[in-house]
């Protein structure tokens, strides 16, 4: 009876959770309460206070400011990766799904190989090739994500292509481009949005993983994964140093996946 209300509650919850991390992240691009780089020996591992609500790290830097900056790096890399991967993947998937043929077959075999590989390892390999750094990680992840987008969109195009309404459109004299763009693409939007949301989450987790390993985002850029790896040494003395960036990742990913469930 209150199925609809419950469903809405789920998506509102998702939006709220996402906003908790994303809004500070977006603010963090332009402004942070303190300079996230300023080292202050007297505040080393300081506890929470009014001035520093999350305390300070091992160099005495304000954790809140670093979380804001780190979230914004993670968020931007996630967005960049997903946009790059989705645009190229949709293009490849649409063309191969629509036209089929030899190119489709070869590309999809290649795709299968890429996909049978764990995405984190793929990203690691690309980072090994490109080298670390904010933008290189984004590139590496975007390339690593193209195959999964291509596969999803290809399957959708293949499915919709065989619908009778597409045949009817063909009989109405629509060109290939018009069929793809006007008749097929709008009917794949739901799947595409879902793939983008899942892709965003995977990108966030992959970036955090790479930075945690020290081969992702490099200092002076802050990143949630990097903070986690720095915090490990002080796990016993200052567990909140590890928990806060970890929670930021979880809340962001959880929020987006709740929104994604709604789209489904």
């Amino acid at each position, binding site marked *: 009876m209150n199925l609809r209300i419950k469903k809405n509650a789920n998506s509102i919850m998702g939006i709220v959770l996402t906003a908790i991390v994303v809004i500070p992240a977006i603010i963090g691009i332009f402004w942070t309460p303190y300079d996230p780089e300023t080292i202050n020996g007297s505040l080393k591992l300081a506890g929470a206070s009014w001035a520093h609500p999350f305390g300070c790290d091992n160099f005495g830097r304000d954790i809140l400011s670093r979380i804001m900056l780190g979230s914004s790096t993670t968020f931007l890399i996630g967005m960049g990766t997903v946009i790059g991967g989705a645009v190229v993947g949709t293009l490849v998937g649409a063309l191969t799904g629509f036209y089929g043929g030899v190119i489709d077959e070869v590309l999809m075999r290649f795709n299968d190989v890429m996909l049978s590989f764990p995405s984190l390892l793929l990203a690691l390999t690309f980072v090994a090739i490109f080298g670390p750094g904010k933008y290189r990680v984004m590139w590496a992840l975007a390339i690593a994500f193209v195959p999964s987008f291509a596969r999803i969109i290809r399957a959708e195009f293949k499915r919709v292509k065989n619908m*009778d*309404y597409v*045949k*009817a*459109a063909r*009989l*109405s*004299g629509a060109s290939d481009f018009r069929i793809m763009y006007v008749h097929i693409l709008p009917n794949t*939007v739901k799947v595409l949005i879902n793939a983008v949301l899942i892709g965003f989450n995977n990108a966030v987790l992959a970036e955090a993983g790479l930075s945690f390993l020290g081969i992702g985002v490099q200092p002076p850029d802050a990143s949630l994964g990097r903070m986690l790896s720095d915090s490990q040494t002080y796990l016993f003395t200052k567990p909140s140093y590890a928990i806060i960036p970890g929670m930021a990742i979880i809340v962001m990913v959880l929020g987006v996946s709740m929104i994604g469930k709604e789209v489904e």
Partner: protein
Amino acid sequence: MSDVCNNQTRILEVKDLFVSFTEEKSSLFDKKKKIDVLNGISFDMYEGEIVGLVGESGCGKSTLAKSILGLNKITKGDIIHYSQYPQMIFQDPYNSLNPSKTIEFILEESLKNLTKLNVEERRQKAKKRLEQVGLDDHYLIHKPGELSGGQRQRVCIANALMLDPKLLIADEPVSALDVTIQAQIIKLLAGLQKELGLSILFISHDLRVVYELCDRVMIMKDGKIIEDGTVDEVYRNPQTDYTKQLLLSAGIM
């Protein structure tokens, strides 16, 4: 072959048509399997006639329909159209209308692509066609999801008529519908055929419906036409065992 229509104008000629599909490979090493669907189909259609095409599932009747309209590749043979823009009505009204577009967009699509009519002229024509299939023009703003099966099939018929075709291919247009709706759609098709002088290739598995609507009937089995004649001729005096069996099963003989 029947010669009842020889004094009329031909609208479609199908000559020795072969179609085979290759099964999609499941792995890189599978050999492509070839499946013959149509094995040498030849027939003519003339202006103003309704031809029934009867056969059981898998006999290739849908493939024949699509091949005639160039919707799949043919292996061998000729298909000659003597009219412009032949159209098709599909079996499942639930997947023959684009769910993300309004009825108006769907109806005007062909006019946008193939004519120079302006916005107002297009809308007028869409309204007129809708009216002809028994729907009033407030349906223009609806999306297919808001319509019933019978209403959708009416929209499909209107859509098929937008370019003023002379030849219509109807692939089991009523088998997904309830009996009473079926009767309405059949009546509608018969009326439109008279009004617009259409030729209709009516594909069906239901010999009774074919009897009611069609002048001529072709019986199809395993990708071949095994019988072709006027409905009365064929029903009264079937030449093949298969046709007899079909008539018996339908409780006609």
